[in-house]
């Protein structure tokens, strides 16, 4: 699975996710990536989210929207919201994976509960950074 979240100079957020799914999947199985609110979500009032991981868990927990709702309706910062969902709720159910998130202030997270996640970021007037391992 791959994904991106972006903030443009007009203050607008966007999220995108794309995947081949699960090896050997049957019966037209679909994971969280194309389900709005599960693997992909964006709202200028909260944040943009793209997820990767064990789709069934991300669907059940409505992960992307849960992070966005937490950001919108609580006083938690973005990192706390992402950590709360990915490192606590998803893990507690037995799922694994990660998310990238970004808000209108330019705060972002790359949160995952696995050994690694291919990831990177770039911001205005900063060098790009890419990572693989924890």
């Amino acid at each position, binding site marked *: *699975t791959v994904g*991106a979240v*972006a*903030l*443009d*100079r*007009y*203050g*607008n*957020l*966007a999220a*995108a*996710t*794309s*995947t*081949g*799914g*699960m*090896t*050997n*999947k049957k019966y*037209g*199985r*679909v994971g969280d*990536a*194309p*389900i*709005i609110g599960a*693997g*992909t*979500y*964006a*709202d*200028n009032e909260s944040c*943009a989210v793209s997820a*990767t*991981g064990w789709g069934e868990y991300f669907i059940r927990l409505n992960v992307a929207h849960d992070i966005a709702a937490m950001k919108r309706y609580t006083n938690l910062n973005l990192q706390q919201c992402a950590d709360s969902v990915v490192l606590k709720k998803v893990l507690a159910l037995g799922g694994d*994976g*990660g*998310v*990238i998130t*970004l808000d209108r*202030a*330019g705060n*972002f997270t790359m949160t995952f509960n*696995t*050994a*690694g*996640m*291919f*990831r*990177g*970021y770039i*911001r*205005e*007037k900063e060098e*790009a950074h*890419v990572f*693989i*391992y924890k």
Partner: protein
Amino acid sequence: GPITLVIHGGAGTILKENIAPEKEAAYLKTLQAALDSGFQILAGGGRSVDAVIAAVTILENDPLFNAGRGSVFSESGKNEMDAAIMDGSNLMAGSVAGVTTIKNPIQAAYAVMTKSEHVMMIGAGAEKFANDQGVAIVDPSYFFDSTRYKQWQKVKLKAQSSTSLLDNVTRDKKFG
């Protein structure tokens, strides 16, 4: 806030000891290319929706990542792909699922968002809609990747065993 782009290329049991240096370099190179592609749009005053499409398209085109070209194989030997996009400024969203002939599924998702009154389309219908909207269609063989194929063969053998889900040889238990 400052214009910003963040990307991912999947998470999992990704350990340094399992990735050869040249493969690691290839992963990093494509991640960098995806960032460059999307950021160029943002730096030029472009929209965030266009930036995320540009970044994801680069990743979909690289067989190293499980999206677009190089997607994993389904039980029936197909590459079935899904994609979604959402615009935070107006809550418009579009997605496609179970598509096998759309070269860049993220561009089909964008077409669903902007050129239909729907949010999600699946299978043959999504492919017809994408074709009608001028999104590039390819033969399913375009998505074939030999590494993924071997991975699938290995998983199929393991799937015949009742202990397949407990076997860690393939380093991933999320098999269909």
